[in-house]
């Protein structure tokens, strides 16, 4: 009965696809409402709040094509700025069970997308949810104790974990340490205080590095912060205990913080939000060029990707070899390239490039 309905629906959809061909049903329905797409996950912004001076919190209502995420993972969010689609990974702060996705985006200087969202995001705007990824996720088997440490806008994935654990009525012990420049700039300060007040198994400590008023912790992360949180490494068992508690440590923030935590907790699971830096000056960058579909990797010799692919024994489709015919266009999945005709350097995001006139700038991954 159920399978019958499914096949009937499938058949009806196949007929619709034929009738809407060659463009497809989505290309018609999206003109009525941009979130009416079956094949592409998109979301409508339903609320925009500026809770700190340097961040914006967006509430998104995803369409039915969105297949969800696990707490701690990131979503590749795309927006269109001056006609160009820009994609950036953001970790939601909402519980994985929530119907709405909450993103808190910290603006950083020169950040194209973060500043766009900070200044221009409005309720009603539609954004793309391109893909979900990341293995910064909660432990597969239950643990007795979880320590979360975050810095700045790195709070979002661990906030998602905390909220998810709360929904799951997690009974173990949780310690949550967050670092910000000041109380004013600390995201989710009030909510964290509320949670700590309501749930006896959750301890929250805030460390403010620039303006220390209201700070629970002094200075940068160190052993004394762990002690203040009442968090003991399992190696130093309290007297009388025979079995160590199982622990998990999650840290998300700038590289200096993740390094510092690793020194004390070598098993910590870490995630850093640092935009990749490229050396744009070099002619032959010496980077790794990965032709992902063929499983071939070469060292960049400075020539256009098409020449390097052919030198590696691959035979990608190509045509004019001068950037006019677009026969050789391929998806670049990572890294930046330089257009050898105009000298323009692309950004690091996923995009289609003409490989006959694109030379790598550092490491590049290509779907070829």
């Amino acid at each position, binding site marked *: 009965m159920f399978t019958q309905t499914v096949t009937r629906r499938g058949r009806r959809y196949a*007929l619709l696809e*034929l*009738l809407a*061909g*060659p*463009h497809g049903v989505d*290309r*018609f329905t999206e*003109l009525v409402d941009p979130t009416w797409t079956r094949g592409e996950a998109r979301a409508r912004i339903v609320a925009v709040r500026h809770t700190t001076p340097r961040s914006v919190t967006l509430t998104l209502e995803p369409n039915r094509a969105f297949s969800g995420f696990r707490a701690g993972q990131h979503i590749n969010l795309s927006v*269109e700025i*001056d*006609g*160009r*689609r*820009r*994609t950036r990974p953001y970790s939601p702060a909402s519980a994985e069970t929530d119907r709405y996705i909450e993103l808190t985006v910290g603006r950083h200087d020169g950040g194209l997308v973060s500043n766009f969202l900070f200044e221009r995001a409005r309720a009603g705007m539609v954004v793309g949810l391109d893909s979900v990824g990341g293995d910064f996720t909660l432990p597969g088997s239950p643990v007795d104790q979880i320590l979360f440490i975050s810095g700045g806008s790195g709070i979002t994935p661990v906030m998602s974990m905390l909220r998810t654990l709360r929904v799951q009525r997690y009974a173990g012990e949780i310690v949550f340490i967050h670092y910000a420049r000041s109380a004013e700039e600390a995201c989710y300060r009030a909510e964290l205080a509320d949670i700590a007040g309501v749930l006896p198994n959750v301890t929250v400590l805030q460390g403010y590095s620039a303006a220390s008023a209201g700070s629970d912790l002094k200075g940068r992360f160190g052993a004394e912060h762990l002690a203040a949180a009442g968090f003991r490494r399992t190696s130093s068992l309290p007297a009388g205990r025979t079995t160590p508690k199982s622990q998990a440590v999650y840290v998300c923030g700038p590289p200096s913080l993740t390094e510092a935590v690793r020194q004390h907790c070598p098993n910590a699971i870490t995630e850093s939000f640092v935009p990749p830096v490229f050396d744009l000056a070099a002619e032959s960058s010496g980077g790794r060029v990965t032709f992902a579909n063929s499983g071939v990797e070469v060292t960049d010799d400075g020539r256009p990707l098409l020449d390097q692919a052919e030198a590696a024994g691959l*035979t990608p*489709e190509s*045509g*004019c*070899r*001068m*950037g*006019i*015919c*677009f*026969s050789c*266009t*391929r998806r670049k999945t990572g890294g930046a390239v330089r257009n050898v005709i*105009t000298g323009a350097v692309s950004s690091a*995001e996923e*995009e*289609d490039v*003409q490989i006959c006139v694109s030379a790598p700038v550092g490491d590049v991954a290509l779907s070829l």
Partner: protein
Amino acid sequence: MTITTPVQAATPQAATPERAKTLEKMVGGRKVTLTPERADAFGRELDELKERIIADLGDRDATYIRRMIKAQRGLEVGGRALLFGGIFPPFWLAGTALLGLSKIIDNMEIGHNVMHGQYDWMGDPAISSSAFEWDTACPADQWRHSHNYMHHTYTNIVGLDRDVGYGILRMSEDQKWRPYFLGNPVYAFLLMVLFQYGVALHELEADRIRDGEISLSDKREILQGIWRKAKRQTLKDYVAFPLLAGPCAPWVFTGNLTANLMRNVWSYMIIFCGHFPEDVQEFSIEEIKAESRGQWYFRQVLGSANLTGLSPRRSARPESAKLFHILSGNLSFQIEHHLFPDIPAHRHAEISTEVRDICNRYGVPYNTGPLPRQFATVVRKIVTLALPWT
């Protein structure tokens, strides 16, 4: 899909082993010459113009193409809906006209231009050259090879550019006359009414199969691609929509047939006016050896012709001219399109004055005229070249 290149000719940007030469062409009884130095300067000016436009691309272009897509989809839905009531003549006429316009805009201003990569900078997968499919029998990937690569790189080079006669017509005196070509006007007429299938079979290179240069089995993948696409298009227009209309099936069927015919005739006229009017030049493989970028631009201008509009007089009203340019996919600016095939075509109108001025300063003739006049010279050429003494 792997695509084989029939002839490995010197690519335009190849290094110049032999000494660069001065180009000479007789255009309309006037000798046009361009020294290598002048060609370089000519190329530099056009390159600068192109860079200026590329730096300016943004919201305006994104909004333009999205509006065009929205209009086309609206025309399609409206046209097909009206045809369901096609038993009433006004509904049939209006529905057919809207659907015909939808197909024309889909193929000309959207499909052709998107597949040139004119909007690839937007990063929108729905408007990207590698993913776009259009509402015609020709599969998009094959078109990108035969058109974007072969035709745009080797424009008007007899023997390389398959658009010179499409393998069935005699469009240049450099093609040797055979008794077969007595039927030139008949083949041209058939190609016009069946244009979408002519375009679909382009990549098959049937003439080379006939001449025994390649065999049918070399083209198996190509044939499969054509079959897949043409089958779905046929099912959609001639089976699924008529059946859905129940008792109105005959009117939906004839409406769809007429809309396809409208698109076929219109796109044939526009495309033939791009490269075959009087005074448009052809080139030999010998002439393009070691061609510089400036010389490549020179060949693109001499090998293309623009259209001013439907009115036989030059002074068309600006609004009607704008509609004409949209329906022609801005191929009415064939010269600008061939110089800069990846610049969004709606920009051609605004750069045409500057292109024309550059051409004037270098003494490069800029061929333009109203559609009726240009098409008349094309028809004359088709008929004349059927005769053995031409």
